[in-house]
């Protein structure tokens, strides 16, 4: 099997199937089956088929490459990605923007993860969105007449958006260049917008949708700048093209500032040389000769940093990292399957994926920024999750926090660790979300204080969610085996620990934040579980109403729970697993560390030293255990009273409850000033610019009135005077006009004679010329 032809076909098909489903549902959705239920089958079928295709592709890949390289070892023979182009959006000389693909094992793993999770969630949604098949009464929306809103169900539309999302997400993963990433980046963004705002009647939902999209656009703004830098200095968007220039084989795949950037940064020098040498060839030779010196002098390094930071900026928006994390918690306004698919497993992980994909371009400075952002995010989000009472918001902040882990891991050099956590997180977080959806479906509320004691009514949900909670806490037997989260989180922590060795100051801070985050994670997850499932029901009405969800919802929970357990394991004896598979895709040159004045990024292999591994495993274990025990103390055994703590730490609680005041801060720093600026501009338009136009018009009218005055007072009077004088003369002369014909003839005759007399008297022959 020739992978370079089959893989694009298989994955391309897997990518386009949801698009076909989307198109069909758009056109025929309402008429598919009873009230559009067929749309669900179609979409689910499409994504399931995509899963099968990805699986076939993965098998093909494994058949070809096996696990050619040992984990974290230097690549014996690096596996080249399958990259190519389908078609060009536009070509301008040497520049071309294309729709293409870049397939390596990371792509395949992502495809597997996305299609698998998406299939589970599609199936789950049959149960969850069941109401949408009939007439829906939305209790959260009251009409002007005070009654709750009744509307037609939108089952098919839900699946329509889902299909579009799957298409966009797979396109994003498959993308062969940054421009295409950006295209699908925006498309997943719009799907997210549509699905967050799925309950279009709710003001809060549409607000959240707008917020999500606009905050993402802020990130995209940075991403665009990064893209502009790459585009105008390297002249290409394709991953292969960029990597070749940034990490040329000639330098052993070490990061160098590419020629294009050096030249762009040294444009003044280039200009001088061009102007000094009329012959372009000589000028070019001189420039080429100067480039190494310029590079030595640091020209262009800032461009590389800006490019990296710009791309990362997009990732910050999409992956809800500090300071653009504010949209994700609000995004929970969407239906829960949406939160599970888009805002937990796939789309928000796209930022992490892109950081991983773009890894070769990041300089140590950028990586340090990534690590710091990740650390801040993971800590901040975890603290907010402690005080949240909305079950989905707890999970949302947990997602933000876990994404922070991934960023941190990537930032400190743990390429595999970060991406590995991405995959495992997708399993357990979608599991947790689906579990929470099951709970919400059962008791009709999001508020945990109104839940409690549900484990007896919903054993499957409670059990699977416990698995999820354990997985996210990183439960396991240190140094031996654990749930998926144990493996991936330990890998990240170990890498941070390795980083700490090289960068004592920053490293310590990062490591202890990460370790503390692990403890808090365990705490809030078990707080959630205990408050929901343990103890006695707090709200009798909600509890009485509760019931286990239908099979279509439970089955995906079980599948995902199984994955949450085994996701981090390797298949016995083959060494096959997510982690080694991801490692196959490690970009060339990133297996060794990097050093810069700002930070030294250790190689990932450094974290596998037994010394580090052992210490970190135990620290993580005890951190999680600590969190778990505190949560048990407060909420499980109810030996400690959270109220008391809240009173003691009132300011802290107030601070956390208000989510660190980010929303308020942004409202006052960005939103209001922007709106004010908008009003100022509008007023400027109306008052100043229109005023100028009106003023000019008024001036002209004034001048014209003046002109009119001059006309009437001077010119007209003069003309009239002439007219009157002529008239008077005429009056005097009228006497001659007697009207008597004979008199006229008389005048003529006498006049003629008179003339002759005059002429004959005065005629001068000499003067006449004769």
């Amino acid at each position: 099997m020739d992978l370079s032809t089959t893989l694009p076909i298989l994955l391309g098909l897997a990518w386009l199937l949801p698009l076909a489903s989307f198109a069909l549902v758009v056109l025929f959705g309402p008429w598919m089956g009873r009230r559009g239920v067929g749309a669900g089958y179609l979409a689910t079928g499409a994504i399931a088929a995509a899963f099968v295709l990805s699986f076939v592709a993965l098998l093909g890949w494994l058949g070809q490459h096996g696990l050619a390289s040992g984990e974290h070892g230097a690549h014996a023979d690096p596996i080249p990605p399958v990259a190519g182009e389908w078609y060009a959006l536009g070509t301008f000389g040497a520049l071309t923007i294309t729709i293409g693909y870049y397939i390596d094992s990371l792509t395949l793993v992502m495809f597997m993860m996305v299609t698998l999770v998406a299939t589970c969630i599609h199936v789950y949604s049959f149960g969850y969105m069941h109401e949408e098949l009939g007439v829906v009464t939305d209790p959260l929306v009251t009409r002007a007449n005070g009654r709750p809103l009744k509307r037609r169900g939108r089952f098919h539309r839900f699946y329509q958006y889902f299909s579009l999302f799957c298409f966009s997400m797979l396109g994003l993963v498959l993308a062969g260049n940054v421009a295409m990433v950006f295209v699908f980046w925006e498309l997943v963004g719009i799907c997210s917008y549509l699905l967050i705002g799925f309950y279009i009647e709710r003001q809060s939902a549409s607000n959240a949708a707008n917020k999500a999209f606009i905050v993402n656009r802020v990130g995209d703004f940075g991403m665009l700048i990064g893209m502009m830098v790459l585009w105008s200095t390297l002249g290409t968007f394709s991953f292969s093209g960029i990597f070749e220039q940034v990490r040329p084989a000639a330098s052993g795949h070490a990061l160098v500032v590419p020629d294009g950037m050096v030249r762009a940064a040294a444009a003044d020098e280039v200009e001088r040389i061009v102007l000094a040498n009329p012959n372009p060839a000589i000028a070019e030779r001189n420039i080429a000769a100067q480039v190494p010196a310029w590079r030595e002098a640091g020209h262009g390094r800032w461009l590389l940093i800006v490019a990296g930071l710009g791309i990362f900026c997009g990732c910050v928006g999409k992956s809800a990292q500090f300071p653009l994390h504010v949209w994700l918690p609000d995004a929970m306004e969407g239906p829960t399957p949406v939160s599970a698919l888009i805002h937990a497993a796939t789309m928000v992980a796209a930022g992490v994926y892109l950081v991983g994909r773009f890894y070769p371009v990041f300089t140590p400075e950028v990586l340090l920024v990534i690590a710091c952002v990740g650390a801040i995010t993971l800590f901040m989000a975890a603290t907010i999750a402690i005080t949240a009472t909305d079950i989905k918001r707890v999970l949302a902040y947990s997602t933000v926090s876990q994404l922070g882990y991934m960023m941190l891991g990537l930032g400190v050099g743990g390429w595999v660790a970060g991406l590995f956590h991405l995959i495992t997180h997708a399993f357990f977080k979608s599991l947790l979300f689906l579990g929470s959806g099951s709970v919400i479906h059962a008791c009709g509320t999001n508020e945990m204080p109104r839940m409690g004691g549900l484990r007896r009514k919903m054993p499957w949900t409670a059990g699977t969610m416990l698995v999820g909670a354990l997985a996210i806490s990183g439960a396991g037997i240190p140094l031996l085996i654990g749930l998926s989260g144990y493996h991936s989180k330990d890998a990240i922590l170990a890498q941070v620990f390795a980083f700490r060795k090289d960068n004592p100051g920053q490293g310590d801070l990062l490591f202890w934040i990460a370790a503390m985050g692990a403890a808090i994670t365990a705490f809030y997850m078990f707080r959630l579980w205990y408050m929901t499932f343990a103890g006695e029901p707090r709200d009798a009405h909600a509890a009485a109403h509760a019931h286990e969800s239908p099979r279509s919802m439970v089955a995906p929970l079980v599948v995902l729970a199984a994955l949450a357990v085994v996701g981090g394991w390797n298949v016995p004896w083959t060494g096959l697993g997510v982690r080694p598979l991801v490692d196959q895709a490690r970009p060339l040159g990133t297996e060794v560390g990097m050093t810069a004045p700002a930070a030294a990024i250790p190689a990932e292999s450094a974290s596998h030293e037994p010394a580090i591994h052992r210490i970190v495993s135990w620290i993580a274990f005890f951190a999680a255990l600590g969190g778990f025990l505190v949560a048990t103390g407060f909420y499980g055994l109810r030996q400690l009273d959270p109220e008391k703590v809240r009173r003691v730490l009132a300011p802290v609680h107030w601070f956390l409850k208000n989510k660190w005041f980010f929303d308020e801060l942004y409202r006052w720093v960005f939103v209001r000033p922007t709106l004010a600026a908008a009003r100022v501009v509008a007023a400027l338009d109306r008052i100043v610019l229109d005023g100028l136009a009106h003023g000019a018009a008024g001036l002209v009218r004034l001048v014209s009135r003046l002109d009119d005055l001059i006309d009437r007072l001077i010119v007209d009077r003069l003309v009239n005077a002439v007219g009157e004088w002529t008239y008077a003369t005429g009056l005097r002369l009228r006497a001659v006009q007697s009207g008597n014909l004979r008199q006229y003839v008389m005048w003529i005759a006498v006049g003629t004679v008179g003339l002759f007399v005059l002429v004959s008297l005065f005629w001068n022959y000499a003067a006449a010329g004769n």
Partner: protein
Amino acid sequence: MPDLNSPIVFLSLIVFLPAAAALALGFVPGGWGDRIKGFAFATTVAVFLLTVWLALPGGGADSMRFALGDGQMQKTVSVDWIPSFNVYYFLGIDGISLPLVVLTSFLSMLAMAASFTIQRHVKAYCILFLLLETGMLGVFMALDFFLFYVLWEVMLLPMYFLIGVWGGPRREYAAIKFFLFTLAGSVLMLIAILMLYFASDVRKLPQARWDACHLSSDVTARARIDATGEPVHTFNLLALAEMGRLENSPFDKELLWGKSIQWWAFLLLLVGFLVKVPAVPIHTWLPDAHVEAPTPISMILAGVLLKMGGYGIIRICYPICPDAAYELAWLVCGIGAVSMVYGALAAMAQKDFKRLVAYSSVSHMGYVVLGLGVWSITPGNLLATDYWKLGMNGAMFQMIAHGISSAGMFFLVGVIYDRVHHRDLDRFGGLFAKMPVYSGISMVIFFAALGLPGLCGFIGEVFVVLSVWKYSTALAVVAASVVILTAGYILWTIQRVYLGPEYKGPHGEAITRMTRREIAIAAPLVALAIVLGVYPRALLDYTKPSVAQTVDNLAGWMERVKLPELRDRAAMEERARP
């Protein structure tokens, strides 16, 4: 039977068919309301089909189909008009004008279809509308500067009446404002035209280029005979462009305050065209004109008339006055960037739906101006032309995309206005439930305006933005930041109009689903928005060769004329330095 395969018949037919139909309508009793509309609509359809035939690829020299991949002027027509003043009836098309011609005929057709709701003075309306179409088509095809100017003015008057008679409550104000702004612009243009005309001299052109400019044999004969005598002036745009690129261009003479003729001409022309674009700060006629104009006229105004400004810049300003353009590129780009931000911010503050769309036009046309202006062929960039080609193609694409999306938006505003008779953004809401198809279509069109990938707005915006960095970092950052503002005002609009539990304004009972006629008008726009978004080459294949030629010509000028000049200056500075 005249030969349809000769350009003079074919192009003249396209340009003057609407005028002829208008003339014929003059003899029809005014009471035939619907039949008159039907006839006018049939005319616009016929013109559209003719332009589509023109745009079909694969034509050769003897066919009226477009020769794809050829950047030169095609299907040229040159006939004496006022030979004593060297004025010729000179038409032609290339990859820059053809898309705009097709856009014009396409939008005219849709706008005429949207005009079926007009009830007052139907006959006069149709006549003026058809005259307007003739003017618009003519402007895009004219290659004689005088003819261009005449047609430019021909378009002005019908527009004035169409706004002033069939408009909203403040129509007189809006119409006179539109008229005065545009007239001021065209007067400046006229001054520049005359300046260039009297400075031009065909004899300075190498004879080898005469044919390429399609100069009339009459003119060339005089130029040959009068090699020493009086200069032979010309209005021929191609010849003027060639002259502008000469080493000792006749336009280089100093005119005023140390600036050359071409510097002043460029400035005057630029202002004239920017009024039409419209760019900040000479855009204030646009919101008023749009708010007051009837829906179909808004569609034409936004969809076609604004494009004339961009077209003028790319066809006339840059090619004829390269030296001035090189010096003033910062001004063009700056105005473009300012318009983008300014329009977006102003749109955000609007309460009137139509005003909002109008300001979004200002913002979107800012991309066009910016993309046209990014002079990336500087010595520091080693005269890299590709980025400017990208920007200019992006600008062309943006013009077409904006033609589709803004015409669509105005139409959609009109659809709801016809039902509820108000445009107050705060008194809509909940339309999604009442008008699902309408809301779905609106979403697509608005998302196209937002620059969502897969829809037409994205390509133009991204191409333009990507090209800017090479010219100026600061402008690039400003341009990129507009994506946030755009998302802000468009999503906010969608939220206020389409989402929410129920409709909040008056006449709620009048909200009915879109009629079949309305869907038929909106559907082609939606389809085009998607097709161009997914397969931009459908348009780029047309524009690319001609844009490339424009840029290459300028790059050639840069290398041949400007670079030695810069070299001398650099050498002088070098020497002045101790």
